[in-house]
């Protein structure tokens, strides 16, 4: 609206009148539908802001509660991201699984060579490394330092070996592949070089289960801590609730500030937890890099990542909201004007 002054007379905008909505008490307030939804939105924003302001008016008490919540969130958050890192590492190793085929000792070098070339034509094998009986013996002599002893042997006791890298990565497929190789007449024994990987996976399965249990327990802690905090808040605002109900506040209206308080607790606690988890990973970065170098790897630690962070915030806010909801549901109905 332009602010022209002078002869132009500004007509007041006519107030739209609400249609009568049946025999409800507030029908004579003349609040139109749009105005009503505007007011409703503004009320939500106001309540949301004032809930945060109330938290900040008691900084010490709020900080204590948030610290407890943040610790309860940091622990599972950190462990979940540690599990993720372990999984990434394990997958990296899985890609390097090898199957060693120890060929029949009776097989001649020429036959062994032909067998190896045949294998190269198969689709399910990514790469092949042939170790002839001669090569095997030389390698063994070099590594073991028993070359003198070996020289005295008239016959080479080692079989020819084909080391192959399968394209399959899943444990089940690899097991089937190994068995099919062992069934070949040229092969004496096929060894899947991954038993330790299976053990690692079993341990990680166990660890992941433990982390989930811990996560649920600590999530419950968050729920209860927020529930109890909100219960105290409800008790301290008893007079306000009674008066509000007397002058026509709905249950939802009375509930709202407490739900927003739960929301803020959840959000701020998630923020603090997120910062501590990232800080912990930052502190681990250098030692892990050194360790990785020892394994000639360039493993890069992953923090929570986008998805992990999202999960942390969503879970925390939902827990805050739900904890407040539980407390409100449990206690607000008891507070009725007498």
């Amino acid at each position, binding site marked *: 609206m332009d602010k022209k002054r002078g002869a132009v007379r500004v007509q007041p905008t006519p107030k739209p009148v609400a249609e009568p909505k049946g025999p409800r008490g507030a029908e004579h307030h003349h609040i139109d539908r749009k105005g009503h939804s505007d*007011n409703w939105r503004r009320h939500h924003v106001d309540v949301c802001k004032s809930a945060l302001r109330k938290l900040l008016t008691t900084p010490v008490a709020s900080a204590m509660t948030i610290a407890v919540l943040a610790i309860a969130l940091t622990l599972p958050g950190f462990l979940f991201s540690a599990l993720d890192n372990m999984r990434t590492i394990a997958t990296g190793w899985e890609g390097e699984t090898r199957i060693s085929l120890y060929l029949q000792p009776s097989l001649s070098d020429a036959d062994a060579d032909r067998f190896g070339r045949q294998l190269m034509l198969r689709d399910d094998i990514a790469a092949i490394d042939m170790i002839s009986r001669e090569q095997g013996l030389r390698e063994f002599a070099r590594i073991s330092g028993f070359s003198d002893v070996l020289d005295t042997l008239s016959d080479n006791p080692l079989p020819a070996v084909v080391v192959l890298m399968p394209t399959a990565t899943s444990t089940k497929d690899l097991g089937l592949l190994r068995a099919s190789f062992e069934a070949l007449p040229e092969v004496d024994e096929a060894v899947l070089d991954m038993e330790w990987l299976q053990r690692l996976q079993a341990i990680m399965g166990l660890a992941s289960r433990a982390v989930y249990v811990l996560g649920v327990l600590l999530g419950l802690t968050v729920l209860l801590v927020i529930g109890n905090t909100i219960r105290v808040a409800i008790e301290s605002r008893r*007079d306000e609730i009674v008066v509000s109900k007397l002058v*026509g506040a709905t249950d939802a209206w009375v509930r709202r500030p407490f739900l927003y308080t739960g929301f803020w607790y959840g959000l701020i606690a998630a923020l603090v937890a997120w910062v501590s988890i990232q800080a912990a990973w930052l502190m681990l970065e250098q030692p892990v890099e050194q360790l990785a170098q020892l394994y000639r790897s360039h493993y890069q630690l992953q923090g929570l990542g986008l998805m992990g962070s999202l999960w942390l915030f969503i879970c925390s806010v939902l827990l805050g909201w739900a904890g407040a909801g539980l407390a409100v549901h449990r206690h607000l109905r008891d507070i009725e004007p007498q």
Partner: protein
Amino acid sequence: MIQFNHVSKRYAQGHDALKDVNFTLATGEMAFLTGHSGAGKSTLLKLIMLMERPSAGQIQVGEQQLNALGRRDIPYLRRSIGVVFQNHQLLFDRSVFDNILLPLQISGFAPDDAARRVRAALDKVGLLTKEKMSPLALSSGEQQRIGIARAIVHKPKILLADEPTGNLDPQLSAEIMQLFTQFNRVGTTVLIASHDIALIRSMGRRVLTLQSGRLLSDG
């Protein structure tokens, strides 16, 4: 505006607070409700606001049969009624202005509209200069007038008062009654519970007398 049909209220402990009460309060009428303490005055007011439910009988407020209202409808009923309490039920953690603002916030008024109405209500009870003060800083007479301002700020059709002059000296009591008369003059239906017989007589209005839960006289 308010109609009681054979209304009884028996509390869980077996105490009969009201027995077969019948009366009708016409729209725009002003009446007093009197009787000894424990005669059922407060119970009667609580029934109108649905702070209690009757054990038997029907109550009609405006167009609404209270028996037909569920828990979720109660807030909307209460928004059509203004109530003044003996202990005024003010909130001491906020200013006078914010105390009177509360019913308007709850009903969803726009802030500027609400502020205008709050000042109008404060003006009516003659305390416009005290809007920023805490209710604690006011005298009990002033606190009671703030309570009245809060009760009428949303222009209810019905105004109930439970011992509004209970703690006040005769002169302040007369002033408060003057306020109620003013609201009645603009069409508000007013029902005041009080045991101050002398004050009630001086007003010359309809008097409903309760004695141990029964309506003794009406007139």
